[in-house]
């Protein structure tokens, strides 16, 4: 007997739906043993996660709040993925977006709410876009690998923001904390339902819709899809791949930059050290699991939000170590990736003797 893998020709829609569901179930069972080992009843813990993240207005709002930057950054990364461009630099682009928005909020002299919002939005997009655009330019002009460039630009962005918040932009009344001054009310998003839920979430949904229309309905999206599927064929058909690579990375970075805007305008009301706890990196996983579709990005981001909020509550309620939360999230992601494999391949038992 031997176990072999075989490629499925076309996977059924039913399988596409059930494989991820089943994989999450498997992850829950595995994590259950970990919970048992720490003396926690897994069922209670899972109930707690669901209750805390989805069972109350507050919990639900927190989940949406956590999902918001992931949606933005995930959309940005997935756009580049569509063209087989690997933007690993969403983290840095978030920082740059936050920086641009903060500059407008604190130093532009604007006081009108809508002007401020528009200015912050534009500044965030430009900063994030330029940050990714550098990699796009290098890639289009000299075929420099964009993975390395976007990744290394992250560190520059993070340190640049650190320089600003520890130095020139530090709030004089901030007791030497690495923070800028708080934004005026006009530079803040509206909040809803007495929670931390802010307009950024709805902006993210709008952004997903626009990106979907852009990719599936416009001639630019069409070109991106052709280039992503086969750059040779695209070049043959007269498309300019170089320009498109630059443009796509620019837009990808711009969308990730808006995540930074949304974080400072909706949540923190100031720029600070560590404004993003790794949303840009999580966004890579989000984009991957979402199979590069805009709707998928929203769904996966919400799932991530549940994990983040639920994980926080586990920490508080049972004093579980943060390591457990990471292990739990890791298990779920791992199983989802495995489900991806089973959607494309099947396992088959083959009778027969083994040779060599």
């Amino acid at each position, binding site marked *: 007997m031997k176990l072999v893998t*075989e490629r499925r020709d*076309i996977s059924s829609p039913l399988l596409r739906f059930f494989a991820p569901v089943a994989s999450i179930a498997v992850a829950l069972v595995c994590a259950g043993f970990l919970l048992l080992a720490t003396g926690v009843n897994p069922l209670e813990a899972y109930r707690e996660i669901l209750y805390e993240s989805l069972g109350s207005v507050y919990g639900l709002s927190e989940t949406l709040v956590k999902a918001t930057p992931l949606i933005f950054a995930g959309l940005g990364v997935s756009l580049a993925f569509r063209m087989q461009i690997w933007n690993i630099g969403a983290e840095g682009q978030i920082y740059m977006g936050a920086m641009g928005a903060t500059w407008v909020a604190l130093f532009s002299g604007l006081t009108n709410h809508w002007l401020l919002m528009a200015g912050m939005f534009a500044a965030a997009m430009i900063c994030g876009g330029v940050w990714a655009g550098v990699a796009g330019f290098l890639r289009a002009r000299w075929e420099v690998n964009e993975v390395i460039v976007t990744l290394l630009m992250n560190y520059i962005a993070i340190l640049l923001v650190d320089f600003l918040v520890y130095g020139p932009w530090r709030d004089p009344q901030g007791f030497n904390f690495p923070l800028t001054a708080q934004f005026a009310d006009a530079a803040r998003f509206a909040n809803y339902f007495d929670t931390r839920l802010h307009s950024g979430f709805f902006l993210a949904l709008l952004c997903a819709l626009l990106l979907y229309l852009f990719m599936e309905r416009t001639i630019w999206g069409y070109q991106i899809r052709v280039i992503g*599927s*086969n750059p040779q064929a695209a070049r043959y058909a007269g498309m300019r791949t170089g320009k498109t690579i630059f443009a796509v990375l620019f837009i990808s970075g711009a969308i990730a930059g808006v995540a930074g805007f949304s974080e400072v305008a909706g949540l923190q009301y100031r720029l600070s050290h560590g404004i993003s706890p790794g949303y840009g990196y999580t966004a890579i996983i989000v984009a991957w699991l979402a199979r590069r579709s805009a709707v998928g990005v929203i769904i996966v981001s919400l799932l991530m939000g549940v994990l983040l909020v639920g994980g926080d509550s586990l920490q508080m309620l049972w004093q579980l170590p943060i390591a457990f939360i990471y292990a739990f999230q890791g298990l779920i992601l791992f199983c989802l990736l495995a489900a991806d494999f089973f959607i494309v391949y099947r396992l088959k038992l083959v*009778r*027969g003797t083994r*040779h060599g």
Partner: protein
Amino acid sequence: MAELLQIKNIRKTFPGVVALDDVSFSVEAGEIHTLLGENGAGKSTLMNVLTGLYHPDRGELLLDGKQVQFTSPRNSLARGIGMVHQHFMLVPAHTVFDNILLAMDRVPLIYDRKTFQQKIQKIIDEFELDLDLNARVWKLSIGAQQWIELIKLLLRDCRLLILDEPTAVLTPQEADRLFAVLRRLQQQGKSIIFISHKMREVMDISDRVTVLKKGRSIATLERGQFDRETLATLMIGSDQIPQWQKNLQMSDKIVLDIRNLSVRNDRGLADLDDFSLQLKEGEILGIAGVAGNGQKALAEALTGLKPVNRGRILAGEQDLTHSSARASYISGIAHIPEDRKSIGIAPDLNVADNLIMKSFKNPCYRHGIFQNLRAIRGNARDKVSRFAIKTGSDTAPVRYLSGGNIQKVIIARELSERPKVLVALYPTRGLDIGSAEYVHKVITDGAADGMSTILIAEDLDELLKLCDRIAVIFRGRLIGYADPRTTTREEIGLMMSGEKRRIAS
């Protein structure tokens, strides 16, 4: 003769597709058994079953009368069944010796280079192959690379050799040498499963022929029972094979003037070297040459895929060398097996999207920046029915289509642009007879409408049948023209190997 391998009622399905329905035939020791069938008849699937890549849903395989199951290529190789694939499995940067060693069984960690070299050299001498063990593979001709693949199998003591269209990449002379080797192997008692579309070869070499059609083995004929017509009829059914008339009434107007074209490859070597060619209106100009003598570079330079280093491409007064107008003036069809996923199509996109790849900016396919989905789908429906493209579902990615149908998608797209010049690079390679005839018809119909075609092909019969003139290319240079009405296969063969020049037109 003893039956080496028996294949009984093999069935293999993929989701939604019956690739093999019911295939039975047997291979005797010391016979050359040809498998004949159109594309999609199931030949590749069957070979994948024999080499252990696929596992049949039903049916039996009997080796020496005993039932067996092949679980992997390694497993079938261990039982003496080996395959020479159409695309060689070689490491181009390594030497011949290293490549062969890589394929050998149980090479000790510290090996004695000399004994192995002698062992390999013995086979080379035995079959009088012209092969230097220390040469790097990428420097060798395609024919020589094929020898390496054969030697790999012989060293593993294969009793059954499967050759998948081995002559597709060879010159007539190289093919003759291959056949001599195959006959000698046969005398040694080896069995050979031979796959080919070229009738001449099939007639020449086969002891028996099994015809596959739509996943079924419909007949096995002994030598003497088959001739071209019988086989062709069996293979494509009762349809008549249409013959196309050569178009001898082309005008003298020159539509494309290629002057001193030079194209360098990635290694800086000249793929095309001072190549000049004049194409007349309505002409079908054939380019004959051994694969790898610059045909691909010519096609790529003309269709704008490769930059031109020197020389000019002129259309009348217009210089197209660096012009973006070239894409609509010159269209291209490339051969399908090799380039299915590399130049012609975007494999992840559906048929409708692939059909508008060159015309997506056309106002009829868009509303401003948005795509006009209704027009795009309408165009797809129109082309699918006009070119008889068999698609699964409308939204299925093109990668799931068969080679012939992908070729039809490409043809439909290229011709909808109404190009003045069509560049066809091995347009029928790997296609079944029905699809190949279809491609021929498209080209000759186009010529009647005044379209000029540069037809790059390896099958001389195809060139002789279709072309008004044949230009022979050797090492990136034009070596001469041949007139299909007066020339012979032998003469073109000699020109292809650079031994004979004849400049005339």
